[in-house]
């Protein structure tokens, strides 16, 4: 299988003398489902940020989707991000846009035609069970519903990989289960690579997954 992420001796830090991730080497195969766990402040969100280029490696190499992110140019990074779907704990929706427009964001950026975009948004709204909320603004929705909008946005353009940072951290059980089902569905049906940073791996999830754990800045695979 192709490797969608290859990290060699990867070190990450916000300040140069305080390494958060120390010389991590790992690879993630295309189409796999990966969990990264760790205690609060262990650096799991930092590692995820580096996977979509929001944080540059201090040392080592990090190749995502064939793009070396150490010293990557902004235009190359933009091109890579257009093929990623990102989900955050705090949803990161544009509050002055309707949920429909929020979902269509990756499609607009990728230059999809208006008719295609509209159809895709409609399908996704049904998929995340929010068809009845169409035309509303994010702040008119509950947290769980907002995260489902964020999930629909991440899936909209059939990305090669979904990166999710504590996607169910603030959600009720119903919305959390729906998010896990959507992630599992994308992985199984569309063969989308899924990387999830979380405190706890859900017990109800029925997918084969790889598990990495971070402790004191060191990343290791859990069998």
């Amino acid at each position, binding site marked *: 299988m192709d490797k969608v992420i290859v990290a060699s001796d990867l070190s990450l830090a916000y300040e140069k003398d305080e390494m958060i991730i120390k010389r991590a080497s790992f690879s993630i195969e295309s189409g796999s489902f990966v969990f990264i766990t760790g205690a609060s402040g262990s650096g799991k969100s930092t590692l995820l940020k580096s996977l979509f280029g929001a944080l540059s490696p201090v040392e080592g190499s990090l190749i995502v989707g064939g793009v070396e992110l150490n010293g990557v140019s902004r235009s190359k990074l933009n091109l890579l991000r257009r093929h990623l779907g990102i989900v955050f704990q705090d949803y990161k929706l544009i509050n002055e846009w309707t949920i429909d427009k929020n979902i269509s964001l990756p499609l607009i*950026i990728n230059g999809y035609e208006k008719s295609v975009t509209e159809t895709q948004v409609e399908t996704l709204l049904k998929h995340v069970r929010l068809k009845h909320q169409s035309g509303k603004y994010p702040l008119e929705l509950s947290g769980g519903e907002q995260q489902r909008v964020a999930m629909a946005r991440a899936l909209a353009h059939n990305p090669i990989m979904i990166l999710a940072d504590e996607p169910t951290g603030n959600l009720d059980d119903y919305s959390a289960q729906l998010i896990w089902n959507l992630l599992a569905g994308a992985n199984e049906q569309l063969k989308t690579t899924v990387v999830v940073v979380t405190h706890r791996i859900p017990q109800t999830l029925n997918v084969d997954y790889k598990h990495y754990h971070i402790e004191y800045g060191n990343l290791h695979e859990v069998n």
Partner: protein
Amino acid sequence: MKSIKNHLSLIVALVSILFAIQTFFITDRALAAYEETLKSHYSLVVVSDKKLDLAALKKRLPYVENITEIALESAVRKIDKNISEKNMRLLLTTLPHFYKITLKKYPTSKEITKLKKSLHAIEGIKSVEDFKESHDLTYKLLLLFKSVVTVFSLVVFVITLLLISKELRIWQYKHKERMNIMGLFGAPKWLSSAVLFRLAIVDAVISSILVMILFGFIANSRWLLSKLDAIGIKIVIFDVFKDFPLLFFAALFLSLILASTIVFTHKEEV
């Protein structure tokens, strides 16, 4: 409602700035009109033993608009209507030549002194009456007005900077998140900032139209027109073809500067 709110903050700032700019234009225009009135009422009187070559004199002296010989006969007749023809002819042969000099601009005190010196250097000229005392008083008043306008324009400039920097902070806060999110999905800078530039252009158009309407009302204000008329000043309060493009470009320039600053100082935060 959301859309109106988005526009309102910048429109209010821009309208205040444009209002101040147009007020400055009007004051400047009124001052120029007042200076023109002063200029048209000011002249020097030259007394000469010899008849002067007016064309040569005009070429030689700076700022001179016109030199005309004062017709003495009519002046004398105004004083003494019963003077006989013989006495008049006798008087005219003994009197020197009088000339009235009008200038292209309202001169400074220094310019008058210089002009007077140049006139005295011409053969035949015996004396030059420059009405200096009256001129100096009026000139000082004019200088005071000009200083007031300069101070006013400086105040406008400072207020503009303050308003714009305040607006900049509001916009930075308001648009940062959207630009961040769009950037996370790989939007190029032009796309993530398109909303900002569209907002800037639309707000520039709206605010300049609002100011045009406002000054349209002011220009028809009977109170203002009567005040200006009382001091003999006739000016255009708002010239649609001259002032509107100027105000529009000022608004556009300011709002585009604002948008560009936000775009180019934006740093991704996740």
